[in-house]
């Protein structure tokens, strides 16, 4: 655990007003026009934030910027600040691998690792030097996503034997196994049948509280049902951010209203 990210206030949670994660003036370029332009956004502790906007609006880039995944793309240049529990994530002494253990992300095209369910769940904890009982941990996180009973407790089952919805939940489970404080989900319910999508949705509800959840989605109904706070992104800019009920029923911005009602500006 690097000192730079060590939570100074462990055991004494800050006042509810302090966000767990806070982006200020965040700009990401992959050469040319910024994919994310000067975005400032707070992510409240234990709450669910939805990022909405059309494809290309910067939702994924923002998610990846929050956990320092963009720097795996050679052309990416990030400026601005992201603070986690008060510590600057982009400080030069901070190890990006350490950031990703605190802020877990389930990418849109999250590939399962070849091999068993256990192998998928154990990889993250092993990489961070987890010394406890990996089987107990696997059972716990698989139960949290509702997979433990579905696979009959068989950790040796190949991950490829799972259905699309189960795979999506296994991806969430293996991220939970690293015990992140913030969970970022990119299009968590896309391309799933309604039953599998509903399972993911209730899973997101059950996870919030222990962790702060950020959901990037182009599914407006999912965003409206699942989130406490909604942020609307368009062409890399933050257009509007507020309580989900307010944003959906009474948006301040004309652009948000146009997007929500399906009118192309």
């Amino acid at each position: 655990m690097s000192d730079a990210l060590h939570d100074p206030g462990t055991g004494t949670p800050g006042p509810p007003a302090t966000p767990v994660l806070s982006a200020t003036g965040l700009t990401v370029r992959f050469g040319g026009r910024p994919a994310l332009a000067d975005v400032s956004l707070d992510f409240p502790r234990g709450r669910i934030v939805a990022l909405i906007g059309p494809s290309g609006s910067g939702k994924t880039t923002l998610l990846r910027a929050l956990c320092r995944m963009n720097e795996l793309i050679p052309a990416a240049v990030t400026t601005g600040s992201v603070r986690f529990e008060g510590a600057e994530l982009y400080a030069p002494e901070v190890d990006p691998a350490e950031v990703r253990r605190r802020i877990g992300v389930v990418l849109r095209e999250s590939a399962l690792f070849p091999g068993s369910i256990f192998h998928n769940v154990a990889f993250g904890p092993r990489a961070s030097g987890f010394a406890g009982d990996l089987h107990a941990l696997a059972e716990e996180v698989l139960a949290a996503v509702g997979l433990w009973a579905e696979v009959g407790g068989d950790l040796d089952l190949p991950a490829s034997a799972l259905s699309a919805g189960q795979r999506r939940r296994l991806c969430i489970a293996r991220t939970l196994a690293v015990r992140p404080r913030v969970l970022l989900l990119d299009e968590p319910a896309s391309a799933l049948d309604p039953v599998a999508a509903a399972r993911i949705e209730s899973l997101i509800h059950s996870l919030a509280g222990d962790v702060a959840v950020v959901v990037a989605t182009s599914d407006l109904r999912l965003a409206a049902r699942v989130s406490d706070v909604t942020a609307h992104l368009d062409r890399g800019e933050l257009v509007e951010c507020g309580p989900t009920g307010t944003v959906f029923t009474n948006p301040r911005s004309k652009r948000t209203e146009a997007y929500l009602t399906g009118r192309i500006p």
Partner: protein
Amino acid sequence: MTPLATRDLLGTACRLGAALTLTAAIALLGVLLVQALGVVDVGFLAGAPSRFASRAGVGPAIAGTLWLAVLTAALSFPVGIGAAVYFEEYAPRNRLAGLAGSALANMAGVPPVVFGVAGLALFVRGMGLGPTILAAGLTLAMLALPTVLVTSRTALREVPRGVRDAASALGATRWQVIRRQVLPAAGPGIVTGLTLALTRTVGAAAPLLVLGAPAFVTHAPRTPGDILTALPTQAFTWSTRTEADFAALAAGTAVTLLVLLLTVNLGALVLRRRLR
């Protein structure tokens, strides 16, 4: 001619091509086996070369080729795979790295005899090793390296981006991602490339002849410092003799070499199964 007729003609031509390829392979093996039939026995495999065809054997040559295979693998595999990991995972994506990578890749097309000439200057004379197993092992390792590099790079590149991203997202360091996910996923492909590099290299006679492999070695090499002898050069030596008996010995040597290479391929097959 109607399009349908054209397709029929092309289909016939392809069938003919397949038949010719099969015939060529069968003819090649058949000729070798018929010639080698009366030659290959325990005495031949264990015995040493002799002036008398009836007493000659390939024992020292088998030992030499096994030594060369081990040396070539030990020297070229780690270096080649390491270089492949560097170029695929660590090297900056700039023109210089691209140029260096493709220059090394083109080395895979350089004829073996060229490596022999270089090895002669570098190892046999320059380092004063003489025509030894060690000098030949170093030369063959140089010959194998570009193939190891190119095939390993291809295998690494075929590991899906999603696997690397998912591993990084779970907080793994770059090295953990490579060691625990990328290399195992690329394993079967890398093994295929290693097999290709090894069999291609160990079967080559030209570089060994250029290094000065003696025609007549009666003692099996026990250390890499011993004098060079190997199956391909032994087959070459016997094939230069005019007597029919010695032609049969050359065929027997060639079949022995083929069986050894086949064993390497079978071993690789088993290893690939295990890695999947």
